[in-house]
């Protein structure tokens, strides 16, 4: 689910950047540092604006200055139970790996409907029900997330397509 979060970040700046355009520089730094990262809880998709940039404080003992930047950002936070669309990135005996944007999702073969079977002999290997449903690399899938795990800088989820309206698109 997408949210507009108000977040803050402390940016340290080398004195060589002190000058009239320091704000511009800070904004650029913020975009570089923050956009497209994962906090472990959510992904920061886009920084809308830095609405408050504090005054710089020179850190004692070094020449760098610290700025606290408050900014608004669009974040995406995957939830348990959320239904998402994904693109299959790899398929193996144990299940299917798919990507929901930046989030890798694993769909175990326990969570794939029983009629969709693993076919290792096909090229590329695929899950198929010998009908119109074929899951191979690149397939678009609709997945329900049933569990998420967050590591320090990344997230991981497992999903299911064993319900109505889920599966290949």
């Amino acid at each position: 689910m997408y949210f507009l979060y108000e977040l803050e970040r402390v940016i340290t700046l080398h004195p060589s950047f002190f000058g009239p355009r320091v704000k511009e520089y800070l904004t650029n730094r913020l975009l570089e540092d923050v956009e497209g990262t994962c906090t472990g809880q959510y992904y920061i998709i886009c920084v809308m604006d830095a609405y408050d940039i504090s005054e710089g404080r020179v850190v004692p003992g070094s020449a760098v200055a610290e700025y606290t930047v408050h900014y608004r950002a669009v974040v995406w936070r995957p939830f348990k139970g959320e239904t998402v669309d994904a693109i299959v990135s790899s398929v193996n005996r144990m299940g299917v790996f798919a990507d929901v944007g930046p989030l890798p999702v694993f769909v175990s073969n326990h969570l794939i409907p029983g009629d969709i079977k693993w076919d290792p002999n096909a090229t590329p290997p695929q899950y198929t029900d010998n009908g119109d449903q074929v899951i191979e690399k690149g397939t678009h899938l609709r997945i329900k997330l049933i569990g998420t795990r967050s590591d320090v800088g990344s997230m991981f989820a497992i999903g299911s397509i064993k319900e109505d309206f889920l599966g290949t698109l």
Partner: protein
Amino acid sequence: MSSADLLNQDFGSESEDDNFNPAPAGDSDNDAAGDSDDEANVTTKANNAQQRRRSSGRRNSGEEDEDTKDNGAENADGVGDEDEDEDEEEEDEDEEEAISGRPRKRARRDPRNQFLDVEAEVDEEDEGDEEDEEGEAAGFIAETHPDDLVDLPEGATTDDRRHRELDRQRERAQQIDAEQQAQLLREKYGRRTANTADPVTVPKRLLLPSVDDPSIWGVKCKPGKEREIVFAITKRIEERAGTKNPMPIVSALERGRTMLGYVYVEARKQADIHSALDGIMNVYPRSQVILVPIKEMPELLRVTKSEQLQPGGYVRIRRGKYAGDLAQIDDVETNGLEASLRVVPRLDYGQNEDVNAPMVDGGIKGDAKRKRQGAMGLTNAAVRPPPRLFSEVEAKKKHMKFPQQMSTFDKKHWQYLGENYINGFLVKDFKIQHLITENVNPSLEEVTRFSAGAEDGAENLDLTALAATLKKSTTNENYLPGDTVEVYEGEQQGVTGKAVSVRGDIVTIGVTEGELRGQNIEVPIKGLRKRFREGDHVKVIGGSRYRDEVGMVVSIKADQVTLLSDLSMQEITVFSKDLREASDSGVAGGLGRYDVHDLVQLDPATVGCVTKVDRESLRVLDQNGSIRSIMPSQISNKIEKRRNAVATDRNGSEIRTDDTVREIGGEQKQGVILHIYRSFLFLHNREQTDNSGISVVRATNVATVAAKGGRVAQGSSSGPDLNKMNPALMRNGANGNTPMAPPKSFGRDRALGQTVTIRKGPYKGLLGIVKDTTDSEARVELHTKSKTITVPKGTLGFKDPMTGQNIDYTRFSGSRGRGDGGRGGFSGNMGGATPGRVPDWSGGRTPLPMAGGRTPAWGAGAAARTPAWSANVSTARTPMWRQDASSANAESGGRTPAYMASNDGSRTVNPYADGSRTVNPYGGAPSVGARTPSLEPHRHILLLLARSLRLLPPPPPPTQAAAPPPTNPPTAPPHLPTPPPTPQAPPAIIAPMMPQHQEKISLRRLHRLRSQVMGTRMWGTPLLRWKGPRLRSFRAMRLRLLGAAGDAGLGG
């Protein structure tokens, strides 16, 4: 009543009679039927008996009276008859005893062996039976003397007695008339109803033992032998019954498994135990004997349901080769002592057999040795072969003859080395006492071994048998407050809730769903199981080999939970009881010192990345790509992750840990770099299932896909890192201390044998001769005093052979090249560019030997056009390695060409001064724009600038200047008196700039620009970050230099 019975039997020592006599059958019946009055009797009866017993030894005469007293008391009851019988028997016995008494024994023994030791008396009792059996026949024949009749073995006497007994009984029965008999029977059997109506109830506590009762002692014995001991005691009681020294104990019992290693003996005195148990095997009455407190006595008789082994169930083997192994019960022998088990065999098929061992000493000695080794081998876990199903192929390798097929239709039945193997399993009889039947706790993977055949073992398991086995061991099923649990058995079946508190076997649940929601209910642990949902993050806690794995639940079937391990991305099936909910974040699973993804040193030449951590072993992928299973002890050390380790990929870009790279060729492996070790990269890729996603590649085989933190992937497109080229940084950092090393000269050092002056140090000013040199130092023999000193070569002053000038070593050694023009010319031709160009600009003028002056050779004066190693120059025309553009040292070779230019324009390299003489670049070689300075001055500057930064390829040297006039002397004096210092480069940049850009660039700016180009830092940031092709105008450059970030658009 049982205790009373015991008492009764004991004191009379006529236990056999009881059995023999049909009448007393009613006795036990009475017990069951009517507790009340009978039990009121118990104590008295017992007491009487005891009293009697006490007195019996001392005074036989008084016995009769007591008996009558007894009779009197018991006749009041309805049971008098039986007791009468008993009493009569007792009388008989007593009479017998009275007759024989003590002398009887002596009489019996004397004739046989007068020298028999008194101590042996006890033993004799043990052997009594045999003696009796032998002696019966012999004794009758040899000693038929009537007097000896009394000496007859017990069996004989009792037999006789019993006959008489029976006769008497019959007589008595005949005497009683039918009516009486009916009355008797009614009393006997009709009491049931009468008794139920009887309001008198005896409190149960009266049945409990009191201080007047005999005490019970616990005696230590060999564990497992309890029953044997009790049997032995029983036997001894029988043997000694009616002898002079009957067993002084009342009863003996054992508690089986619950109290292993103890038998309990009921006796009056502790001393009685010693005498009674003396000589019985495996029991140790001499060691500590424990008195059981009266309160605990009833507990001793509490019945525990004995373990009933069911075929199909699981047990563990207690000892031997299979100690600790799980076994499935195939069959249980009816005697309850042995069971036939199916075990996964641990066979080495003779692999570890020591071929030399048996015949070393020969005979028994060697044999014994081998045996001992064998025994050690069995206990030694290291030698114990791993459990594997029997393979006849393996067996036949070493022991051709041994494997025998047992039946033709069942091909899987083999006999090998005396053991039976059916379907790969060893089927063998084990004693039940050598089995662990409680808390077996079979783990799923152990159990799957027994379901051989199917691919997915979990599916065709006999789960009911397994569950039954598991249910028995509820002890280590641990619930913690907070666990989500489900009741699957009993009244509250189906209730789900969270454990609130756990006390012993009772779990209090706060119900979360259904009608009972919000209530707390208490449920016994055995009907409870943990409940998880798909997607839960769980950790394996139980005794399975997956312990401490963390993962997400993928599927749940009854109490089997499948989870996807976080680390290995493998699916694991475990019982729900072995799981516990884990927090949603973080990957635990650190076991011991080594963790998955650690880089460990295996031996000095090998490192490996841990791919899996088991409880005892690690799985490691080493640098050669092979997978090893090792013990933690085999690891010499752990290599900490080096954050700043750098390698270069096949494109020459720098790669660091956490970069994403892809293998070019091979398997196209892709992944994030975990470790860089020498030229090997350990990659991790989540989507790869084998080796937990870890693979090893060579650094030279990978290309960067994404560098961490947006560090530019410096491929061929973006050129080298300009920061490193910044002359300002170089000068600042190095401060001239590390100028480029002089080109190495080869061959004999020219300084050898020269007369030199020393220009620095304590020997300054002294004259000497160079005797020996190294790279940096020279040994100089001083003229003044006969001493050889070692001084740096740089401090030596040489006399120039041509000019007589005092020059330093570098110049001195460098002059060699110039003196040898022929070689220079030759090398110039070798440059490759010259021949092609020659026709263009010189029209057949062949380069002469002295054209060497313009060769890019290292020492040549025309080295101006060799951008080779002079990377840090700010002017492209600096000819010498020692180029310091700002230094105006007269000796600097930097200006030599300029000087030469003024002297002889033909050889100049200064395009500004001499532009007219250059070949028209647009005509001949358009590509070499660098040589058209006069036409496009500032473009030229930029090109030079760019070239100095190595953004553009250097111009081919020989096309640079016109050929020298043939009149030039072949060996031009390389060092003429220094011309007036005309600092060349900087003005060359600035001068052309001025006229055209005066209106835009102020002098101050220009100065700044210049100083930057010259390496003076005006700004705190690294300068010169622009990329060559984008510098289209000075304006752009100026803006760049002003540090306006992101103004690229304005640059046009």
